[in-house]
């Protein structure tokens, strides 16, 4: 190592510029030679009309490089999300990092940390209300599937519950074709008009291709509808090394890039300028058990690499991280959530879906959510970096106080001691041992239980104003009538 050089300065990037260019060139080749399957006549027609070579028998579109380059250029570099009240909250892009609870779990872990049961509407209400109190989780999500709600309205009803219980912007998704239009109507009712909604997006729509290189009818249609309605799209590719993509990380990234670009092309063909987030849910496919841990380091590495591609293309990025595949809120849950969360943060990924999640995204726990909020806080502190300037260096102060100096009552200390650190909630115990014993020698899960109880009892999320609540209710009642549904767990009556 040379003296006085900057050669070995660390920085977290998995890919060099040459590798990024190589991946890009090869992704174009995959799209042009292998192509991508779209189980949708409409999608194939849009692509064909825009120059793709479509084979109707195999429903495959071979997409030319020019189409891809155009699509990349048309997509906006940043997506701003506005809360329910219309206030700008987060800007997705650059290296801004924001978290949302992982979705969608199918089981809810009760506060005893042991009982796991099918998730229901009341769980999503609690998740929304607890999440509203968590300062390090900027977004909310359709975190659970509602087993006590008819499937026909299941996706849209989740949005209704979130809108009523917290003003935070939303990561949502449809599991039907009609779900997108229904949800758009609900969001437009809140904004006052469809145009107002386009101007100030409140929700991002997750749309998942089927690995490798396939879009089902529903997902194709969701892209088309979201693009038409100007709703931000977040594609969620799921590389599965050795199962649905090459067993190598690099090969899995390549499939991911090709798949994501195909979704981008469709969206931009339908509506140039559609807000688009390069998202994903990479996994490690465990060849011992056939299971798919998302929190494996290998999975997060795939995300970090594809995020570099997203950034190369000037797109906001997303992944699933800050979560665990453990079945219980234990040390494995803590370490997997932290490791994946921190790596994803270092990778500068703009939306990180994960807090609260256990067991291959099948289970969610409120206690884990509040613990994970601390992980998010620490990760965000890391992302904030180190403030280095004349004031923070405090050269004059150091020289004045000299050897043995005591900084405790200095004005400088008073100015900085609260601003510099992330100050965790009592979930993170930093008291001295005597204090800790006096308070009952409790572990983090017990402290989380207390915190969840406290939030549910004391925290009051801002309520939706009566006028807009009425409009939202009206839209939902129309949807219910259309679907022949007469009663839902939390109204509207």
């Amino acid at each position, binding site marked *: 190592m040379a003296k006085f050089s900057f050669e070995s300065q660390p920085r977290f990037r998995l890919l060099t510029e040459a590798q990024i260019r190589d991946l890009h060139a090869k992704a174009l080749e995959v799209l042009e030679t292998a192509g991508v399957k779209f189980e949708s006549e409409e999608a194939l027609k849009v692509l064909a009309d825009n120059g793709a070579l479509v084979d109707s028998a195999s429903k495959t579109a071979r997409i030319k490089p020019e189409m891809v380059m155009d699509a990349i250029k048309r997509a906006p570099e940043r997506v701003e999300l506005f809360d329910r009240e219309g206030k700008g909250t987060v800007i997705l892009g650059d290296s801004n990092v924001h978290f949302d609870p992982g979705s969608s779990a*199918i089981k809810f872990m009760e506060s005893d940390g042991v009982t796991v049961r099918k998730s229901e509407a009341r769980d999503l209400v609690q998740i929304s209300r607890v999440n509203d109190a968590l300062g390090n989780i900027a977004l909310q999500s359709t975190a659970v*599937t509602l087993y006590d709600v008819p*499937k026909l309205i299941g996706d849209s009803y989740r949005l209704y519950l979130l809108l009523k219980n917290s003003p935070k912007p939303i990561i949502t998704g449809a*599991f039907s074709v009609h779900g997108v239009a229904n949800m758009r109507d609900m969001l437009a009712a809140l904004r006052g008009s469809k145009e107002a909604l386009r101007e100030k997006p409140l929700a991002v729509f997750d749309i998942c291709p*089927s690995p490798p290189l*396939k879009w*089902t009818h529903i997902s194709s249609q969701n892209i088309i509808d979201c693009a038409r309605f100007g709703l931000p799209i977040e594609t969620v590719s799921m590389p599965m090394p*050795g*199962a*649905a993509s090459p*067993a190598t990380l690099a090969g899995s990234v390549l499939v991911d890039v090709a798949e994501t670009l195909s979704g981008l092309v469709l969206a931009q063909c339908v509506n140039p300028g559609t807000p688009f987030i390069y998202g994903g849910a990479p996994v490690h496919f465990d*060849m*011992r*058990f*056939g*299971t798919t841990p998302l929190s494996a380091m290998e999975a997060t590495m795939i995300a970090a690499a594809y995020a570099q591609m997203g950034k190369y293309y000037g797109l906001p990025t997303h992944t699933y991280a800050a979560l665990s595949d453990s079945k219980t809120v234990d040390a494995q849950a803590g370490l997997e959530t932290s490791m994946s969360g921190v790596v994803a943060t270092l990778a500068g990924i703009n939306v990180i879906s994960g807090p609260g999640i256990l067991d291959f995204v*099948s289970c969610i726990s409120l206690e884990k959510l509040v613990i994970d909020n601390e992980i998010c806080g620490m990760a965000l502190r890391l992302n904030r970096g180190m403030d280095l300037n004349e004031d923070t260096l405090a050269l004059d102060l150091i020289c004045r106080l000299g050897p043995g100096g005591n900084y405790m009552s200095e004005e400088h200390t008073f100015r900085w001691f609260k601003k510099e650190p992330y100050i965790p909630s009592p979930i993170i115990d930093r008291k001295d041992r005597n204090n800790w014993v006096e308070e009952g020698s409790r572990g983090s899960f017990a402290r989380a239980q207390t915190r969840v109880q406290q939030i549910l009892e004391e925290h009051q999320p801002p309520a939706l104003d009566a006028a807009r609540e009425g409009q939202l209710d009206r839209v939902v009642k129309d949807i219910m009538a259309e679907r022949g549904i007469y009663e839902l767990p939390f109204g509207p009556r």
Partner: protein
Amino acid sequence: MDKEQIFREMKNCVLEGEIELAGELAEKAVELGIHPLEAIEEGFTAGINEVGERFEEGDMFLPELVAAAEAMKAALAILEPLLLEQQAKRKIMGRVVIGTMLHDIHDIGKDMVASMLTAAGFEVHNLGVNVPTDTFVDKVRELKPHILGLSALLTTTMPEQEAVIKALEKEGLRQEVKVVVGGAPVNQGWADTIGADGFAENAIDAVKLARGLVG
């Protein structure tokens, strides 16, 4: 070269997933006048059995299972036609129809089960993915399998497994076939609830289950 040695080589080539070698050894057995049935059972099947055991012990992994099954198929491709010629039917363990439920496109696990069942001596009809309930029923009627295997990876498609069982009852076919279910969200509790005859966690268990049901 004596028979025992060849059988050892056959077993090893299955363990190693050596597809071409499996074909070669099968042909060699024929040249040497070894009865095809003996070659299958003493040689290749011994390999498949060991693969199953070692997978359960955490000693072998999924891709090795798949490779072993492919090697077995290569050997069977040469030896089974000979059995037919000699009218020495290989003890076909049973006939299986297998598929993934309607609206479900997951097939990795199901295909592994199909492979392992074939390697274990079952005649397997793999209907693919996104299979409508009626198709399952029609195939049961047409092929008269001993076992119907239903795979679901989505909680939203699991109910189709129940629908198939009910449809079989309605058509008076339920007693003619053993219905087994599988897939990540599926468990014994669900199998019991819907009146299935069995549930298997993975491809190895599926073979054990199938053997138990036809035996």
